[in-house]
């Protein structure tokens, strides 16, 4: 960065110089920025391949200066598997929402994880189908408003939300599974560390690394943007507890390399 030797904060180099289009208070901008910082930190811009999902994350191709290959709804892990197996020198990462990964994509992620595919999955969980107007999703909370459960989700009508991280942690294939949140700066920093560790796991040739990021969608939650983060902390964390669910010893050993 010319003449900016003293700059201590700026746009990650791997991110395109353009404003994003996300809604006020949306978590995607933060998650994508964290991914951008990690790609810069690890120097993998020329090897990284973005495989986004269908939904608001489909716009990721416009924001990263890396190759991108669109996948059908839920199928990003399958596409990333092909990329990694055919060209192991590349670094595919998926960026998927809950309406994608936890719904139509459950078969793909379970089997990619069970096979221990050497890919990294970033799972943005905002408990809704954002792009199509906020319909009930597999991670929508009991009692939570959605466009298709306007009186709030009920167990009788729609059953229970799915905890993907815990479910995938029962498999032997993954090397690292963790859930983080974006509700305040301290947790955004933890999210960044988790994403970096997940990327380092792939660089070390370990099995599937998975970071579930609790993310805000104020417009579809019908919560004011400035209140959405606290709403998320109060309501989503009890259902989706933060922390690590799987961390094999080889990933533990990588933790000291992660920037603080």
């Amino acid at each position, binding site marked *: 960065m010319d003449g900016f030797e003293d700059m201590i904060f700026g746009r990650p180099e791997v991110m395109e110089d353009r404003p994003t289009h996300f809604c006020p208070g949306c978590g995607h901008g933060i998650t994508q920025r964290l991914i951008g910082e990690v790609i810069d930190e690890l120097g993998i811009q020329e090897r990284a391949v973005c495989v986004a999902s269908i939904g608001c994350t489909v716009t990721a191709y416009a924001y990263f200066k890396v190759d991108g290959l669109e996948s059908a*709804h839920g199928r990003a892990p399958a596409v990333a598997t092909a990329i990694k197996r055919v060209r192991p020198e590349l670094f595919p990462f998926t960026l998927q929402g809950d309406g994608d990964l936890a719904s139509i994509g459950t078969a793909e992620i379970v089997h990619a994880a069970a096979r221990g595919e050497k890919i990294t999955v970033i799972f943005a969980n905002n408990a809704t189908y954002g792009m199509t107007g906020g319909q009930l999703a597999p991670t929508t909370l009991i009692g939570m408003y959605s466009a298709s459960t306007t009186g709030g989700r009920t167990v009788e009508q729609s059953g229970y939300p799915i905890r993907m991280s815990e479910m995938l942690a029962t498999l032997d294939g993954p090397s690292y599974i963790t859930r983080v949140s974006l509700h305040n700066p301290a947790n955004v920093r933890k999210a960044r560390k988790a994403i970096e560790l997940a990327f380092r796991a792939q660089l070390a040739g370990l099995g599937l690394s998975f970071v579930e990021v609790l993310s805000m969608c104020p417009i579809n939650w019908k919560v004011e943007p400035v209140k959405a983060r606290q709403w998320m902390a109060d309501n989503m964390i009890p259902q989706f507890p933060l922390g690590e669910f799987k961390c094999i010893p080889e990933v533990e050993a990588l933790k000291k390399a992660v920037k603080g």
Partner: protein
Amino acid sequence: MPAVIANIMRAGPGLGNIGGAQGDYMQCTRGGGHGDYYLITLAPSSVQDMLDFTMLAFELADKYRNPVLVMADGFLGQVVESVVIRDRVKKLPEKRWAITGAAGRPKNIINSFEMNPMDHPARIKLILQKFERMQRNEVRYEGLNLEDADIVLVAYGSVARSAMTAMQEARLHKIKVGLLRPITVLPFPYQPLSDLAGRGCKFVAAEMSGGQMVEDVRIAVGNRNEVKLVNSWGGVPLTADEIFEAIDLLA
């Protein structure tokens, strides 16, 4: 199995862009799945049609014990119009084949597998016979200004509405244009189109695809007369102006 399936078509492959299109015509009418099968396919042009044809679809599905497709486009999917609610269906055929528990009757099995492979052809023959009955009995279309038409517009779905405007414009220019709007694209109204070709009409097929319904028009017309395609694609509507231009060139 009776079922009603709605396909609200948008520009393929449908992985993010949601503009209306008619590019699934072949998939709907020539089969997007395995084997010999045919679904009656209804093409609404208005919200009133969406309501009426969906109710009709349930009736036809029960009548033939077959799935029925309601095929609309992304523009109709978003439009808001007022409707008149028609009377409910009162009498549907009895379903003696249904799964209600084998109490006091022999078992009912709904599957596609035959233990004895030699029994499979008979099953397919039933489907083919059903299709013949659909073709004889279920063709539906709307004809406007066909009595004295020299040029016949063929359009369905939201394109039929642009086509109507183009037809009116053409008539103001003293060009004798009529509109044949298929309501069922399967079974397709081949006979009325063939009759019009026999009378010497030329045809303009208007659709939001690379050119799919036009092939059915060509089947009906054969080599006898000119069939011109006017189309749009990629989720962009086909305008009355574009259709009128095509008519003007042909006239």
